[in-house]
């Protein structure tokens, strides 16, 4: 799935002067399989970008397209299909269910498409260093542990793009590398790409494309 930004300008940002290489007000395409980074400091609009891609915000001018489909025309029922099969997200606020256990949080997503077995999900937890958290309620986990659960949940579906909004903000370097490796491996398996927003750190990863705000 190709993502096309055709002079997209969020209304709250329309009064600000944006550069020639900014994602706002300019035209560019993201091709399937690309590994893309959006590096900017806090408060610059990274979440506006991911929320626009997620269909959460429609308050913009210009056109945002998934292939030839205008994102703002996607109906709620079709968004469900997109979010189940084509585009996956790790939101900055993670959007986990704090009362549910790690297992329940993962299965809630995984059961929609039966992408992985329980054993595979447990294996992902082990890879990311939290195998013992399977039966623990998410509210008892640290932010870094919750970020890892949210990443595994986002991977537990088929997708053409995975959008990650500051997913490593509470992780140390070693855990960040483990997570990025897992995401990259899954993308390579599926032949898909990801868009990662970060706070000035490239995590020693070579990206295909960098976006600017």
């Amino acid at each position, binding site marked *: 799935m190709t993502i096309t930004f055709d002079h997209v300008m969020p209304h709250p940002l329309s009064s600000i002067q944006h550069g020639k290489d900014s994602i706002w007000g300019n035209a560019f395409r993201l091709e399937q399989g690309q590994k893309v980074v959006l590096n900017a400091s806090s408060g610059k609009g990274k979440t506006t970008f991911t929320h626009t891609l997620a269909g959460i915000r429609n308050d913009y001018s210009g056109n945002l397209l998934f292939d030839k489909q205008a994102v703002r025309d996607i109906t709620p029922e079709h968004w*469900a299909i997109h979010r189940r099969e084509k585009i996956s997200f790790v939101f900055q606020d993670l959007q986990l269910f704090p009362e549910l256990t790690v297992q329940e949080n993962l299965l809630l997503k995984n059961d929609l498409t039966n992408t992985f077995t329980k054993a595979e999900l447990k294996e992902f937890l082990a890879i990311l260093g939290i195998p013992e958290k399977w039966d623990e309620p998410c509210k008892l986990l640290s932010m870094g542990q919750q970020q890892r659960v949210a990443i595994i949940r986002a991977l537990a579906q088929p997708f053409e793009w995975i959008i990650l909004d500051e997913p490593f903000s509470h992780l140390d370097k070693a855990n960040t590398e483990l997570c990025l490796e897992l995401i990259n491996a899954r993308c390579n398996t599926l032949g898909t790409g990801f868009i990662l927003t970060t706070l000035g750190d490239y995590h020693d990863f070579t990206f295909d494309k960098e976006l600017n705000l």
Partner: protein
Amino acid sequence: MLKKILFNNQVKSQLIIAVVGSFLGFTFLITSIHYLIRVNEFGEGEEILGSNSIIIQKKVSNYNTINLAKTDFGENEIDHLDQQPFIEHVEPILSNSFGVSFQTDSDLVPYFRTDVFVQSVNSDFLKFDSTLWKWSEGDEFVPIVLPREFLVMLNTFASAKGLPQVSDELAKSIGFKFKLYNDNSSEYQAARIIGFTSEVSAILVPSSFMEYGNLGFPTAVPAKVTQLMISVKEGSFGTFENFMEERSLESKESSMIVGKLKSVAGTLFGVVMAISIIAVFLASLVLIQYAQLIMSKNAYEIKTLLRIGYAPKSIIQAIIAYFIKVFALISVLAAASFISLKFIIDGIMIKGGIMISSSFTFLSFSSVILAFVIYSAVNYWNAQKEILRAR
């Protein structure tokens, strides 16, 4: 899992209040509709005359006796009555001006003969097949409706003679005959009982037979309308009774009793039904608000479910299914309570001499189904609106 997410942190006390309110409203709604139907049916089928039909006449006073006041009704008086809003229909009752006697004509019963008084009533007031209520010259027999007292008298006579008594059904199958006469001539006409009445003291005959007798055997006594058959509108017996009091009219008290009872009981159950509808409406409103509260309290959960790929339809279904179960439970409990209440109320009514049908009424249960459908539809529409608003 969806149920666990959406209904885990409920304020149960609010749900319990709404459920109790709905349960009481539903129970009273079914009960009031059921008894409203049964009360309206009360008295039907027992009498040949419709339960809202009564015979009225002018009160006889000393002035009538000394011929200073009339006891018969003129055309203007009949028209005036017909125009009253609580009266559905008025018809004069024609009486015979010819001589008529009535006698048995069968070996099954002892010979019995008496002079009688016959009256004719329009078939609209009688509750049997109107094709039976006709007579023309040359017909095999004259159909008649016999005062029940007459059969009692006949049985008393049979008993005194040591003969078997006659049941209603047997009386209908045995032969009787009229002797029509005046000073100059006489004639016999076979008669057959087709029904009984406790409301009229004269033998009822079709109007064509009355005309035949009045024309064929005229006497010096003119035919006067001294009684009227009136059909009173449902539930208007109170107004009608006041009207009769003002106009010095009277009727046989027993014929008013059913109508009055139906008016009073009908009004009472009507009021209960109105209160029940309000109760059901308010309780449903609380339940709908409760459903809305659940959605508001779970705004984060709903939004997250949508963002991880759950279809709005599946979330709506989970919410609707929960409240359908709650409503179904309320309906079943209300129906069960109604059945118990009915058992008690029917017992009280039978003790009080009010015999009503003990079967259930379809409409009372339908009202619950209707309320259930309306509630579910409103709830679905509400849930759809709320969930589609979340992104």
